Structure formats: structure tokens, C-alpha cells
């Protein structure tokens, strides 16, 4: 099996995410054993943000890293694990609420495709970029 | 008509001069105060001037019948002024005023006729002759009673004040200014001229009771003013209170207190006219005289700072704050009356203190505080509108700083008018009418 980064590369839907991870310097972390649960926004999610948002973040890696870390939980959790708890602590520090079990919704996003297992964790594909708060 | 004793004899002395001046001034300013777009403007001015005519005639008369004539003449235009312009209940107010005024006129006529006809020195209505009037023993009481009724209704004092609060509060601003500023002084002048001047000994006998009446009237006016929710009614009761004070001064009839009485006549005339003028200005702009409906008028951006400032000044003057006319008058009155009637004087002093209460309460609500932006949709007063209030205020201040303006006119006249009183214990024993000749022997008319 591939690790999270390789899986994402292979899917072809996460070029913006991967660039962001690269710029934020988190590639190494996401290639490490982990394990992690990652909520991965598709490219359309980034495109849906108002113009300039991504550009500003990309120019400021620490800030970008903060947003990205909000999408990662330490430990590998599948969908059934996740729905057992109302919220989970992200790597950034803020809580990620599980909004709905059926259909699977995390914070204000819908999970397009859950439980994509990788070497070092599980990836859930989401349709929006999550922001803390 | 010499057969009737009616001579057209006019003259000025120290008593009437300031009053004539006051009449002229207040009439002028009340005309200035009226709105230029007044629909029946010519009628208003005509009636105001007619009232002025009557009043001036009354003050200038040197013949008692002429005085009565002028007194009655004043009644008609003032009633019409009340009835045609003013608040919602002006018809009631006018009728009441007319009724009380009619009674007052009848009583006055009867009293004056009695004075002239029963005069043992000869039939005459001229003041000079009546100054040495000598009346048969039994008649003095009821003549004094009639005169007191007549003039007490006019001033007014308790318990003859029934018409006053309604009339003053329903009158439109120019009319209120004239009524409170001048017409009420007719009563005081009458008392001075007739009761003190011509029937001095009887007055001296009745004075203790009248002093108490004055005190009660002052306290009643002040206490009621504190309770009012409408600015016009508050000023009306305030006026009543000040009239009580005037009554005290006239009852004491010492040289100093009579000077104070004249000062109070002038000062109160100015101050009450000023208050009504300002309340009128506020009503024209804001549309209400309800105290609860107003707040924060001193606001420099959207309020009426100039008008409210003058209002504060007028209220302070009414309360007797030194530096303004009210203080001069009150001070002299108290000094003049205290030795003679200490308790009533103290009572009136208390009433003066209470005037500060309602003045502060009123201004605290109306002037200070937060202006309600939703209601603050009016424009500033123009300089033209401010002229009456401004001139009255300046006079009030000047009179306060230069008391001679109030006291100087009438020094001689009041000195000659003053009575020396026997000590109270003698008076108590001397009250029955049969003792009048003895009282006359005891007293000296200086």
C-alpha cells in the first residue's frame, strides 16, 4: 500500500492540496509512519474559496500549515470509529466536530469518499476546506 | 361725571410707575412672542392691546371708580384671549376665569362704592380724598372683606385660586405672559392702593390672618408644582406660590416689606412671563409640554441649547438664586416681614426652598439627560424668536445685580404707605369691630 502522500498523488484530485502540503513543509510528516487520519479536500474545494485566499496562504507557510494541520487527527480512524465521538482534536489544536453519521458529514463538509486506507493512516475525501472556529 | 364722582383723573406715583412700565413691556414682548403666521393675528394684537389699555388705565387711575371701570374693562379682552387661543380646555378655562372675574368685579364695585358713599368725610372717589377715608364702625369689616375678595380673586390667593391653574396652563403663550405677568399684579396693586393705603387700620387688624393665608398659598403652590407633569401647569402653580409670598409682604406692610412687595411684583412679573415664554418656545419646537416626553434639550447638536439655557436661568431666578431678580425680592420681603410675622415668614421661606425642588426636578428631566434621537426632529430657534426671552432674561439678571432697578421706583410711595403695627397681643384683643376706634387711636398713619 502507498502512504498518504502517494495515495493522494495517485488519485489525481488533490494537486492543490499536495502543493500546499509541500509549501507548508508537511510532506515529510505525512510520509512518516504516523498513523494519521486525514480529511483531504479535493481541488474543487480550494477553487471554491474566494480569490486570493489560497495565494495568501501559500505565501505564508506557517499560516498555511496551521490550516492544513486542522485537517489531520493523530491516529488512524475509520468512519465507524469517527462517528462514535462527537468531536476530535486536530493536530492544530482546535476540535473537529462530527456533524452527521448518515450521510457522513464532518464539520461543514460532506465526506465524498471515506475509509481510504493507506500505509500510515486513513484518508477521507471531503468537498470543502475546513477552517477552525 | 361729577354727580357720580367719576372723574377722569390719571396720575403716576411710585406705586404705579413700575407697574405701568411692566405692563407696557410685557404687552410688547407678548406681541413679539406670538407667531407671525397667527391666523387671527390682528384680533390677537387688538385684544392684547385692549387688555393693555385696561390695565394701564387701572394703574394710572387716580379715581376709584375709574379704577373699577378699568378693572372691568380688562376682564373682557382677557377672557376673549383665553377663549380663542390656547389649549384644548380653554373654553372651560375662559368661563371659569370670567365667572371668578365677574365676582371679583362685583365685589370690587361694591367695596369701592361703599368706600365712597359711606365716607364720613364726604362723597368722593378721588384717591387723594379717599386717602383720609373715615368709615363708620361696622362697615370696615365688610368693606375690607369685599376688597379682599375682589383682589384675592385676581392675584390669586388660596382659597380663591380655582380659576388660575387651568387658565394659565390653557392660555397660549402671549396670553399667559400677560395674565401671569401683569393681570395678577392688578390684584396686588389694588390691595396696596386700597386695603393698605386707604383702610390701613383694618388691614393691620386683619394682617396676621392674611399673612397665614399668604403662607398657605405659597406652600400650596410650591407643593403642587412639585407634583406636576406638565410644564405649563407647573409654572402656573409656581406663580401661585409666588403670589402667596407677595401676600405675606403686603400683609406685613412695613416699609421694607412693601418695598419687597413692589420688587416682587416686578420680579415675578418678569420671571413668570419669561417662564411662560420659554415653555411656549419649547412647545413650538418640540410639540409638547409634557415633562415625561422631553429630555436632553441642552444637547448642543440636536437640542435647543439656547432656549434651555435661558430656561435654566429663569428657573433659577424663580427659585430665588442670588444674582437674579427673584432673590432681591424675596430677600427684602423676608427681612421686612420676619419681625412682624415670624411663623408665616418661615413658612414662606420653606416654600421658597421648595421652589428649588421643582425647578431642579424640572430641569433635570427636561434639560439634562439624553436626547431621544427618534424625537429630535426640529430646528433651532431663530434669533428673532429669542428676542422676548432674551430681553426678559437680561432684565432679570440686571435687576438681580442692580436691585435699584426693582426697588428704586417705589421707595417713597411704599414708605408713605407703610403701617406701623401695634404689638400682636394688642391686636388680638383689638380685633372685634367695636374696638376699631380704639385701634385707630393707637395707630398712626405716617
Amino acid at each position, binding site marked *: 500500500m502507498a502512504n498518504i502522500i502517494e495515495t493522494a498523488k495517485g488519485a489525481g484530485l488533490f494537486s492543490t492540496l499536495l502543493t500546499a502540503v509541500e509549501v507548508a513543509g508537511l510532506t515529510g510528516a505525512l510520509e512518516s509512519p504516523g498513523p494519521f487520519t486525514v480529511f483531504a479536500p479535493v481541488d474543487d474545494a480550494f477553487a471554491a*474559496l*474566494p*480569490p*486570493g*485566499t489560497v*495565494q*495568501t*496562504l501559500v*505565501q*505564508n507557510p*506557517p*499560516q*498555511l*500549515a*496551521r*490550516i492544513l494541520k486542522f485537517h489531520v487527527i493523530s491516529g488512524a480512524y475509520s468512519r465507524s470509529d469517527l462517528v462514535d465521538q462527537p468531536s476530535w482534536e486536530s493536530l492544530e*489544536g482546535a476540535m473537529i466536530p462530527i456533524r*452527521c453519521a448518515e450521510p457522513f458529514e464532518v*464539520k*461543514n463538509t460532506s465526506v465524498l469518499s471515506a475509509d481510504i486506507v493507506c500505509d500510515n493512516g486513513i484518508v477521507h475525501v471531503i468537498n470543502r476546506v475546513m*477552517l*477552525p*472556529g | 361725571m361729577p354727580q357720580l364722582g367719576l372723574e377722569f383723573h390719571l396720575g403716576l406715583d411710585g406705586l404705579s410707575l413700575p407697574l405701568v412700565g411692566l405692563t407696557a413691556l410685557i404687552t410688547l414682548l407678548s406681541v413679539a412672542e406670538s407667531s407671525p403666521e397667527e391666523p387671527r393675528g390682528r384680533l390677537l394684537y387688538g385684544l392684547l392691546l385692549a387688555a393693555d389699555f385696561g390695565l394701564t388705565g387701572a394703574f394710572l387711575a387716580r379715581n376709584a371708580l375709574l379704577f373699577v371701570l378699568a378693572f372691568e374693562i380688562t376682564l373682557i379682552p382677557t377672557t376673549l384671549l383665553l377663549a380663542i387661543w390656547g389649549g384644548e380646555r380653554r373654553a372651560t378655562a375662559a368661563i371659569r376665569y370670567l365667572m371668578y372675574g365677574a365676582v371679583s368685579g362685583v365685589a370690587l364695585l361694591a367695596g369701592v362704592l361703599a368706600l365712597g358713599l359711606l365716607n364720613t368725610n364726604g362723597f368722593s372717589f378721588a384717591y387723594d380724598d379717599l386717602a383720609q377715608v373715615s368709615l363708620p364702625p361696622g362697615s370696615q369689616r365688610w368693606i375690607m372683606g369685599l376688597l379682599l375678595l375682589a383682589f384675592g380673586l385676581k392675584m390669586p390667593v388660596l382659597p380663591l385660586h380655582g380659576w388660575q391653574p387651568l387658565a394659565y396652563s390653557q392660555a397660549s403663550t402671549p396670553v399667559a405672559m400677560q395674565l401671569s405677568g401683569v393681570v395678577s399684579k392688578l390684584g396686588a396693586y389694588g390691595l396696596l392702593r386700597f386695603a393698605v393705603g386707604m383702610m390701613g387700620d383694618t388691614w393691620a387688624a386683619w394682617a396676621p390672618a392674611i399673612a397665614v393665608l399668604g403662607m398657605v398659598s405659597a406652600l400650596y403652590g410650591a407643593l403642587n408644582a412639585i407634583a406636576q407633569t406638565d410644564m405649563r401647569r407647573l409654572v402656573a402653580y409656581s406663580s401661585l406660590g409666588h403670589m402667596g409670598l407677595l401676600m405675606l409682604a403686603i400683609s406685613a406692610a412695613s416699609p421694607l416689606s412693601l418695598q419687597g412687595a413692589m420688587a416682587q411684583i416686578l420680579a415675578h412679573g418678569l420671571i413668570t412671563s419669561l417662564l411662560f415664554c420659554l415653555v411656549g418656545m419649547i412647545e413650538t419646537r418640540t410639540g409638547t409640554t409634557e415633562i415625561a416626553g422631553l429630555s436632553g434639550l441642552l*444637547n*448642543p*447638536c*440636536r437640542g435647543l441649547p439656547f432656549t434651555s439655557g435661558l430656561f435654566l436661568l429663569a428657573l433659577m431666578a424663580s427659585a430665588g438664586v442670588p444674582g437674579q431678580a427673584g432673590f432681591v425680592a424675596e430677600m427684602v420681603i423676608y427681612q421686612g416681614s420676619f419681625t412682624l410675622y415670624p411663623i408665616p415668614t418661615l413658612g414662606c421661606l420653606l416654600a421658597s426652598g421648595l421652589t428649588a425642588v421643582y425647578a431642579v426636578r424640572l430641569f433635570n428631566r427636561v434639560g439634562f439627560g*439624553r*436626547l431621544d*434621537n*427618534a424625537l429630535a*426632529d426640529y*430646528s*433651532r430657534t431663530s434669533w428673532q424668536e429669542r428676542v422676548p426671552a432674551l430681553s426678559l432674561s437680561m432684565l432679570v439678571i440686571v435687576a438681580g445685580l442692580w436691585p435699584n432697578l426693582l426697588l428704586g421706583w417705589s421707595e417713597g410711595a411704599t414708605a408713605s404707605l407703610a403701617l406701623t403695627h401695634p404689638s400682636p397681643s394688642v391686636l388680638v384683643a383689638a380685633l372685634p369691630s367695636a374696638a376699631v376706634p380704639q385701634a385707630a387711636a393707637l395707630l398712626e398713619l405716617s
Partner: protein
Amino acid sequence: MTVLTSSAKALPPSTHPFAEVVERLEAGGSMLPDTPENLMQIIGIYKAYAVPMDFYWRDLLYIAEQVFLNPLPAFKYFPSQEYLDRPNSYQGDQAELRIWRGEAGAHPELLEFMEKGEIGKLPKLLHHLWHDRINMEFAEACMDAMLWHQGMGGRFNDYLDSEVYRQNADKAIKAYFKGNPLMLGLYKLFPEMLLEQVKKLSYVANLGLFWEVMAPVFFEMSDIYDEGGFSGVPAAMDFLVNGIFAVAGRPIYHQVFIRGECFEIIPKSEGFTWLYEAALPYVEAVFYRTAPFRGTKSYNAQAGQVPSEQSEFHYGILYADVFPVGSAGIPPTLLMQDMLHFLPPYLTELYLQHKRGEDDILVQLGITFQRSMYNVTSAVIQALRAALLFPLDDPDPEHLKANRAFFESQMDRFIRPEARLRDVQTEHYR
């Protein structure tokens, strides 16, 4: 984000006291009704606000970075030419994200005012002593509000209590007072005192960086309006929302220059963002909470006239009784006087036609400012909704219900009688 009506009708009507406003928000609008006059008023006042704001941010950064711990900062309101020329990161040719099409340095109207003021061309010091200048005291009052209310979200405040910050501050303090035994001795005796001052200065920097963004946003809005580019109040609000997102990731930091050397008290690498650490706390502190202004009214704290919970404070611009009491030194009055100098002509004309014209122009423009801040708050609310909740045209009714709950909870804060939300709905509130 377009203005929609169809999805909003998917839900039954709201039962909130401000149902009309909630439904307007759900349709993509602002708390302020969409009328041409509203649009004219708010854009005009944004421009009048942006010019002094240009001065504020430059001087705030000057104070935070240069003046720093000067014990007698008599000239802190005289930013150096370097700071007046300092290029705004969002305007000018060098900007990476150019929000305003204008030049990078200080706005020309600002420079003209600084030179001439109201009384004419005089040396700067005389202008300052005559108080014919931009009222920086307003900016400092905003900073004080943010400092005092502290815990309003974001990581900024907690960081100021952390060990890392203390060490950074310590280095900077020691470097600043090198060779000054008196101040260093004072620092040894009372370490917390100077540390507190540095915390204050960090908030100063925070505010300066916040306003550095807002000024070009407002300038651009004014230019777009002059070209006729806004179709209404919602369009203006959308511009703000996009602006908020575009700059959300801007770093918030505090660096100090001591004798040419740069000390990073709050480094950029801490990851503080403009949105979370500057904008949201600012809105909460200055728009909603603030504090009662001294010298205007007496409050009896024992009788509960001032709320015991800081979160209950309601003295911000959204609740303000805009009547200037006339006392100098009240922050909103200071701002109003600043804005008075830079009003666009169409706004001055409007004011001369209403109420008392020139006599109460300050009150009128204050009320306009309040309207405009309701619009900015609407933009923040919509931006938060976009960031944390669902799009307005979301097909799922559950999502729409979540949106509505969010809007209604925001509107709950305006139910109290002091809130002016009801008043700004009407035209005659001037």
C-alpha cells in the same frame, strides 16, 4: 456568492424577532437594507474612514516597532518618513496581492491634511499642540479595548502569557535599554511591568497589521463605487467578504527594530493569522463590546448598570448612541472628527440637506458610520458562515437549518434595546 431567493424559501419563515433580517442574510444580503442611499452613505464613509486609517496603521506600526518602550514617547504620533512611505502590502505596484489600484505610500489626501490641517500651513509641532491632526487616541482606544477584553478567540492572547514570548520580550527589553541602568534596574525589580508594556505593544502591532489591510479594501470600494461597479449593498458586502477571505491567512507578528537590529517578539512562524488573531477579536472588541466611555454618563456598578460579564458588554459602535455628547476625548467623537475632514463631496451634500445641516454634521456622519459598520459586521457574519457552515444555495435543508441557526444566534446579540439594528432598517434614522 449571488443573491438568491429560491433556496431560502425551502425553509418555513423564521420566527426570530429579526426574521426579516435573517431572511435577508439567508438570501445573501446584508443586515443593512439594500437601498441606493444606504450604498452611497456606506461607501462614502468607508472612504472617509480609510484615510485616517492609513495614518493609524502606519503610526501604530511605528509605535510598535520603533518607539517601543520609550518611557517618554512625546513624539509617538509623528511617524517617521520611512513609515509614511512604507509600502502597504496590498496596494501599489510591489504588492503581491494588490487590493487597491492606488500607490503604495500614504494617501495623498492624508499627506495634504497633515501639512495643512484645518488651520493652514504651520510647523508640525504647532499642528500637534493645537490638536489639528489625526486623532491617534482613537486608535489607541481600540487597542485598549482589544487588550482589555483579551479572550475573544484566537491564540494571540494565550501566546502573550507563554514562556517563549516572555523570553523574546526579555531579549528585546534588555537590548532596548542597553546602557540604561535605571530602566534595567526597574526591569529587574518589576519584570512584569515592562513585560506588560510589551504585550500592549504587541496588540498595537496586531491592530496596525489589521488596519493595513482594511485601508486598501475601503479605498478600492470607493473607487469601484465611483465607477458604478456596485449593484447594491449586497455587492459591496460581497466585496468585503472576498477581501476577508483573501487576506485571512496574512501573518500577524510583532517585530521591533532596536538600533537597526530586528528582534522578533512574535515571529511569523507562530502561525498567527489575520482572520483569527486580528479581525475577529477586533470586531468583537470594538464593534460589540468596547467599554463605557469615561466622562459621559455615570454607571452604578453595584446596581448592575454595567454587566459583570465582559462578554455582555455592549458599548461598541453597533450599540452606540451616536449623539456625541460634545466632550472631547471620547473615541467615537475623535473618529468622527477625523472622518469629517475626508468626506467625499456627495456625502457632504447629503448631510447639508438633512436635519440641521452643518450644525450636526458630526452626528449625521456618525450614524452613517454606524450603518457602514453594520455592513462590515454582516460581511464578517457571511464570511464566517461561508467558512464554517454551508453555502446559501445548499440543497440540503438540514444545512440550511444550520445556517439559519447561526444567523439567528448572531441576531440574538442585537435583541437588547441598545442595539441599533432596528434603527438602521429605517431611512429616517440620521
